[in-house]
């Protein structure tokens, strides 16, 4: 008991001496108030040591870890103070995201309009229209990079499904009455960029001839899309492609 008291008193004396030393070593008066605050806190902590030890066990390890954590942590990360570079990176990411969502919205609207336009002009039912837009550059509006029109399969009652394309093509009339088709095929996700649409048992095949020309002309007149950028596909049911 007495030993513990002696150690405690020794600590207090040492800390007070230390505080006196730094007061002496200080270069000027203006810092004195601040240094005295810190020195006073240290003295207070030393005096409180027995209480703290009773309440919280060994606190010096905790103090050690806290100090290490406080001084070794990267201040910028610790305080979450964003640097200018961080802010600029965030701005770039946000700008990119905004541009992406704007172009997605534009693509969607153009796709809807094109679907309606194709149906109205040619009577063909477009199952899917995919528009890809690319940014032309800073401050310039985005341009259409490619258009891929997937036509729903028209089923003429008298002819075989496989010859339907050529039959319709040889029919020649843009506004030829084409039957309403039930587009039951669910799988409309083959992308035009994928290998080749007509390889294997894929469910779309490119359409050439008058239908494609008609679609391309509709797109050119309505949206001034370069026909070279337009790809016209047709849905082929599984059974037809297997044959």
């Amino acid at each position, binding site marked *: 008991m007495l030993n513990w008291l002696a150690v405690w008193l020794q600590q207090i004396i040492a800390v007070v001496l*230390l505080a006196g030393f730094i007061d002496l070593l200080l270069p000027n008066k203006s810092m004195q108030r601040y240094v005295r605050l*810190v020195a006073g806190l240290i003295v207070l*902590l030393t005096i409180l040591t027995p209480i703290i030890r009773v309440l919280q066990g060994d606190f010096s390890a905790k103090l050690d870890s806290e100090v290490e954590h406080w001084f070794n942590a990267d201040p910028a990360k610790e305080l979450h103070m964003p640097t200018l570079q961080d802010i600029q990176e965030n701005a770039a990411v946000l700008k990119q995201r905004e541009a992406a969502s704007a172009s997605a919205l534009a693509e969607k609207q153009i796709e809807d309009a094109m679907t309606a336009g194709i149906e109205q002009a040619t009577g063909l039912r477009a199952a899917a229209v995919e528009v890809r837009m690319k940014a032309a550059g800073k401050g310039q509006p985005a341009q259409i990079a490619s258009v891929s029109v997937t036509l729903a399969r028209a089923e003429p009652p008298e002819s075989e499904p496989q010859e339907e394309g050529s039959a319709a093509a040889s029919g020649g009339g843009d506004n030829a009455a084409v039957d309403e088709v039930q587009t039951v095929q669910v799988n409309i996700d083959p992308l035009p960029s994928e290998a080749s649409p007509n390889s294997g048992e894929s469910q779309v095949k490119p359409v050439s001839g008058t239908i494609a020309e008609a679609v391309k002309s509709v797109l050119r007149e309505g949206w001034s899309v370069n026909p070279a950028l337009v790809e016209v596909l047709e849905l082929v049911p599984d059974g037809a492609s297997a044959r």
Partner: protein
Amino acid sequence: MEIIQIVGLGLVATVLTLVVREQKPMFAFLLATFTGLFIFLYVIGKIETVIGVLEQLADRSGIPSIYLKTVLKIIGIAYIAEFGSQIVRDAGQESIASKIEFAGKILILVMAVPIISVIVETVLGLLPIGS
């Protein structure tokens, strides 16, 4: 005898500064700055003895080494800030000098944050609400 050397150096530098200031104020400032730097670096080595004594004291009395580290850091910050602000003040930039001193004060207060947090936690632990 070192104090004589240092004071002699200071006097010579002062006279030279006064002579040069009429013609080239820039060189006068540089001369003063380098004299100050030289004296600072010359004496900073001697302070090692004082620090050694302090460390011994802390060791023997068993106070946590954190306290000594904090105190030494405070002294270092105070000296460096004071030195820098005096150089800047010599060049006539009073406002920048006061900013340097301000930064020094802030950094000294930052040193106190871990200690303050431990004390606050203890006080909160004393209260029945906090526990």
